């Protein structure tokens, strides 16, 4: 799935070009599979909370993204999973500099985005796109589909026939040519998301961040959109970051999955390995909440229930950010020392002081968290 952008008809030739910016110009043509396309280091987004009307004071911060490191290789799909409100959307927007990061660096195809001025940044945007969580909100209600799809072409000086390109894009995402003259509110949710996807691929980007691309859609349509995204990846050689709050959605599309909790990654692993053996207590709890189709296995296995409420990102617990709910919490270290995301085994990163002991079974979940008769109250919002 890594053969990159082989001359899509009408593909915008690099015109005014990203060449004005520092570093090697990101290219659509010559892709080396496996080379890192996106590299994020220590990324933080803290939203100040202000009080007072005349003289506003900052009384605290929403630590929506609180130090994220990750790397995405060209042509692969990185799945990002976490509960609602853990900062997935904010992370995605900060990577694309749609929200200004508070700290950290994002290097895209060798270019440090934080160092780009407005105009070079704007030009770089043709290589990185986003598909939004709420398709209706992501489309200007006063803008026809034609206009929405022409906009990126115009912004980057697309040289060819724009209305031909619009029809081509509609065809690629499976919408009739007649959709061009219509307005967002005239479409169904799935069709709107197709429009959003068409806009994202209009400039033949390298990277697409798909922020919960199907969570706002009917279950019956979700698979169609996921399939469309997969097809596009193959055809256009796209690299994806796919965000989801549902492990089931990212499971079969992702090569690597990062699990996020309260603004930080707690575990990262190749998709299959994560499912075969989750290492972080949070991931273990998430997995145990997924029903297993085999009734016998379902009968025998243990549910790990999370207790307590999800802490607010304004008051992130000190020490391990998961310690207030962790069924494996130990009297030492957990509440004091913040665990780094460390490579425990090749390819397996985990942010837990006791991951080895938990993996070998030396440390077991607290009895109260394992009651098999307990209902799912308190289980994380993950299907």
């Amino acid at each position, binding site marked *: 799935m890594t053969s990159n952008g082989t001359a899509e008809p009408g593909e915008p030739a690099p015109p005014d070009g990203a060449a004005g910016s520092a570093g090697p110009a990101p290219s659509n043509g010559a892709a080396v599979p496996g080379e890192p396309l996106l590299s994020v280091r220590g990324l933080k987004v803290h939203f100040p909370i202000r009080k007072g*009307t*005349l003289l506003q004071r900052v009384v605290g911060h929403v630590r929506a993204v609180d130090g994220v490191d990750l790397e995405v290789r060209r042509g692969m799909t990185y799945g990002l999973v976490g509960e609602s409100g853990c900062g997935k959307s904010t992370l995605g*927007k900060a990577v*694309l500099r*749609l929200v200004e990061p508070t700290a950290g660096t994002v290097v895209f195809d060798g270019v440090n985005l934080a160092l780009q001025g*407005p105009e070079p940044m*704007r*030009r770089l*945007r*043709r290589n990185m*796109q*986003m598909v*939004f*969580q*709420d398709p209706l*909100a*992501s*489309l*200007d*209600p*006063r*803008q026809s589909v034609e206009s929405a799809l022409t*906009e*990126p072409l115009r*912004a*980057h000086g697309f040289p060819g026939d724009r209305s031909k390109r619009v029809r081509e894009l509609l065809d690629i995402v499976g919408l009739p040519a007649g959709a061009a003259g*219509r*307005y967002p*509110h*005239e479409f169904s949710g799935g069709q709107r998301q197709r429009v*959003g996807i068409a*806009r*994202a691929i*209009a*400039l033949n980007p390298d990277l697409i961040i798909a922020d919960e691309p199907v969570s706002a859609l009917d279950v019956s349509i979700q698979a169609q959109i996921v399939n469309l995204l997969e097809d596009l990846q193959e055809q256009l050689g796209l690299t994806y970051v796919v965000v989801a709050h549902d492990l089931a959605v990212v499971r079969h599309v992702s090569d690597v999955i990062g699990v996020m909790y309260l603004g930080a990654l707690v575990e990262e692993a190749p998709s299959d390995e994560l499912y075969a053996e989750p290492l972080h207590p949070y991931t273990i709890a998430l997995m145990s909440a997924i029903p297993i189709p085999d009734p016998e296995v379902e009968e025998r296995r243990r549910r790990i229930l999370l207790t307590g409420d999800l802490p607010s990102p304004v008051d992130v617990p000190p020490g391990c950010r998961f310690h207030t709910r962790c069924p494996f919490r130990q009297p030492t270290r957990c509440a004091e020392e913040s665990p780094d995301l460390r490579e425990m085994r090749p390819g397996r990163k985990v942010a837990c002081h006791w991951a080895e002991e938990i993996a070998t079974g030396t440390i077991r979940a607290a009895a109260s968290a394992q009651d098999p008769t307990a209902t799912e109250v308190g289980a994380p919002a993950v299907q």
Partner: protein
Amino acid sequence: MSLAQVETVAPEETGGGLGRDAWRRLRRNPVAIVGAILVIMFVALALLAPWLAPYPPDKPVGQVTPTSIPGPSAEHWFGLDDLGRDEFSRVLWGARWSLVIGVVSLLLGLVGGMVLGLLAGAFGGWVDGVVMRLVDIMLSVPGLLFAIGIAAMLGSGLDAVMIAIAVVNVPIFARLLRGQMLAQRQSDYVLAAKAVGVRRRRIVLGHVLPNSLTPVIVQGTLTLAVAIVDAAGLAFLGLSSNDPSIPEWGRMLADTQRYLSSAPLLAVFPGLAIIIAALGFTLLGESLREALDPKYRR
């Protein structure tokens, strides 16, 4: 044609932008219809006053003494005023003046407010800070009092009245537009436009501004009502044109005060006219607000 037929003849329209949706809702709202009729009536009377008025508004057409002011008759529908002028003709011409004052002060206020609001909403940061402090200060003075102060400062005359009313409305429009623009700037479709590389100026003028105008239009309609009442209030307090022959509803009210016992109807006619005109714009504005509310969007 039976009712069922009527219903099948009017098919559910599809297509078109949000404007058509809103129009459909507006047409079905009886309050909007009443408001529109009042507004149309008011505007028509104002425009046609020179042809509709049976007498000149500024010349005595009958004999009056302070103790005997003739009331309504077949010849003079609303009677005569304290100077023997035809009250009906004066009320008609008054509509014209109210419309002029209302529209001019609305437009001045709208332009001023939108410029400030656009600056604050487009640039944010310290520009926003300065504009908003200014707006806060202006809003902290009660409206009519503020207008009185400005009108008094500028000296008498209708220009002063219109400017005063406009200035009072500037911060209202500025704050409204700025708030809308800031809210829109956070929205996903603006981020989406930024993500595909649309230039800042086009985002602000092509996406943020058009999507922020709806409440400004609604507020503009409501402001016409307020402007008419404010103009009358200022005139009542003696802040109006230097020319006493100009029939202005507020001044007509003020001038008849002394004759309230002998000719109470002289206060009723201009008073009712003010109320009806203001009511028309208020009803229309409120139903516009409802029709354009995104909550009702499909």
